């Protein structure tokens, strides 16, 4: 397990480096000069040259790349073109919204999906088993922003029980207020997320319920609950955990859209705004931080799988391959 951990860590570090290269190359090699976004239309060539010099886009690519790596290593992500403030601290303050949003939605989605998915598998022949499958099939096709809009309409505008959007100015100083303003976004994300999770839980549970070891345990006199607890849970958890890691990463990134719908000052709305303003340092900073998060989540998912199922420990990455 230790040697596995070390190898997996090396893979993580390598992936991070590659991610840095990909972000750098994509932003630099695509047409369009970042200097243009600094200036108004009709700037003179001298102004453009000065702007290029200021942000360093006139230097050769390898030199720019070394600068970018140096920035990453020192956690200095540069200054925003628009606000001229450093990107790093801005990202940290935005995480106060995005991280709770992601984690709360994730927990709620798991709390919905695991029991519902299990019931859908256990009672697959009944009408409600079919109904659950049907709803989750529909759920994965509904765009997250549409659910958000409908929830806002019903709960915020019609019933007036929850705020339609926004986040308290002083953040988590008033935990109750902050939680209330996150309520609708969390429900929105959790609903969409649980729709796809239910399908995985259901199919994992179907595998377990039809397995020989469960039948053997029952034949040996174990009660259904005990057999599921001792044998079913561990076996069923492996595929679900690999999906969970992917879903958690997706949620983090789905935050882009959800935060825009609910006007939340999170990482996602920061990225959307930066993209619209061609604010390169902010775009690459946010992208690197979110890719970092996605890679770390994948790492934790792989570790969790191997803790649950010793049979996987020889393999480097992924249980779902």
């Amino acid at each position, binding site marked *: 397990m230790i040697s596995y951990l070390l190898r997996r860590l090396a893979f993580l570090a390598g992936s991070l480096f590659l991610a840095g290269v990909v972000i750098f190359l994509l932003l630099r090699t*695509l047409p369009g000069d970042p200097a243009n976004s600094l200036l108004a239309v009709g700037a003179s060539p001298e102004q453009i040259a000065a702007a290029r010099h200021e942000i360093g886009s006139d230097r050769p690519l390898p030199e720019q790349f070394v600068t970018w790596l140096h920035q990453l290593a020192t956690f200095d992500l540069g200054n925003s073109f628009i606000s001229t403030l450093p990107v790093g601290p801005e990202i940290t303050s935005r995480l106060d919204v995005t991280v709770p949003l992601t984690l709360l939605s994730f927990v709620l989605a798991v709390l919905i999906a695991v029991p519902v998915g299990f019931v859908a598998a256990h009672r697959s022949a009944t009408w409600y088993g079919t109904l659950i499958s049907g709803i989750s099939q*529909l759920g*994965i096709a509904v*765009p997250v922003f549409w659910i958000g809009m409908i929830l806002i309409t019903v709960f915020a505008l019609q019933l007036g029980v929850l705020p339609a959007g926004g986040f308290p100015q002083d953040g988590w100083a008033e935990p109750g207020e902050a939680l209330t303003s996150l309520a609708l976004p969390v429900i929105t994300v959790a609903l969409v997320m649980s729709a796809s999770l239910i399908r995985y839980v259901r199919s994992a549970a179907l595998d377990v319920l039809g397995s020989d070891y469960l039948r053997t345990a029952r034949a040996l006199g174990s009660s259904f609950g005990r057999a599921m607890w001792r044998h079913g849970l561990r076996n069923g958890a492996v595929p679900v955990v690999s999906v969970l890691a992917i879903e958690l990463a997706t949620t983090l990134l789905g935050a882009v859209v959800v935060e825009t719908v609910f006007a939340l000052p999170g990482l996602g709305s920061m990225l959307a705004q930066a993209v619209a303003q061609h604010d390169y340092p902010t775009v690459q900073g946010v992208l690197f931080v979110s890719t970092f998060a996605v890679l770390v989540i994948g790492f934790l998912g792989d570790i969790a799988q191997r803790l649950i199922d010793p049979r996987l420990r020889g393999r480097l990455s992924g249980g779902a391959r």
Partner: protein
Amino acid sequence: MSEPTAMESTKPTRLTKPTKLSGPAKTDRDTGTGKEPGTAAGASRGRRSPALVAGCVLVGLIVAIALVSLFWVPYAPDDTSGGRLVPPGLPHLLGTDKLGRDLLTQLMTGARIALEAGLGAIAIGAALGVCAGLAAGFATRWLDDTLSTLLDVLIAFPTLLLAMLMVAARSASLGTAVLAIGFAMTAVIARLTRILVKRVLALDYITAARTSGTSWPRVITGHVLPNIWPTLVVNLAQQFGLAVMAEASLSFLGLGAPPPNASWGRMLHEAQATVFTAPTGVVAPGVLLVMLVVGVNLIADGLRDTLDPTRRRTR
């Protein structure tokens, strides 16, 4: 999407040597179902898959709307003469939006844009992804390792982020959105292709074909591609749904096709403020979007059941 004979193409797990066009005089490949004498029966059985039929109806409706919009729409997309926020009725069947544009017109052109986005992204993703996957699948060990690590990292980049990165570097347009979504898809398709290729290459009949003197190009066209395409097609159908959704999300964020192109995502964004005065503007594009994505997913499920003989029993 295919001639009926190809539907019978064998799974990699079969040990019989498959041929691309297996004729009706087939052997006992479908022992699981046991009652399929020939391809015709297999094909008609496939057509009866309820998921496939339902999916085709839903997608067919959207395609029909898009086709009609090519030749006729009730009003010009930027015609604002009808007055703002007219309720549904005559002469504006679904009413108008806050700028006075006809909603039905926008919905119809939106159908076309959604389909264009999906098809365009799939074409790019499939062309690049299948080639990269084949290359990785056939490559020597170190090259394969390098490529698959690269793919793992690229997969960590979700579609929407990659698309936003490209929109940041270029400008917001349908072309940029489609290109970005297609690129983002490439990694997923390449990884799947690589796994499928590896699986097929490990089988005995490939060794048999090679030892009996078949050239690699012939092995690819005659054995590898026919064995991997059913799974690939199902995956591409699923990716199509994701691409449509990604385009809608980008447009919703204002990073998709600029006006006067009516994208469902942008319509939803614009209608958000007037949800009480003109609820049709929120409901109608959403319903069409869901119809298209559900339809495509149903087709994917139906195809999987039809193309994969081992799944027929479990259904």
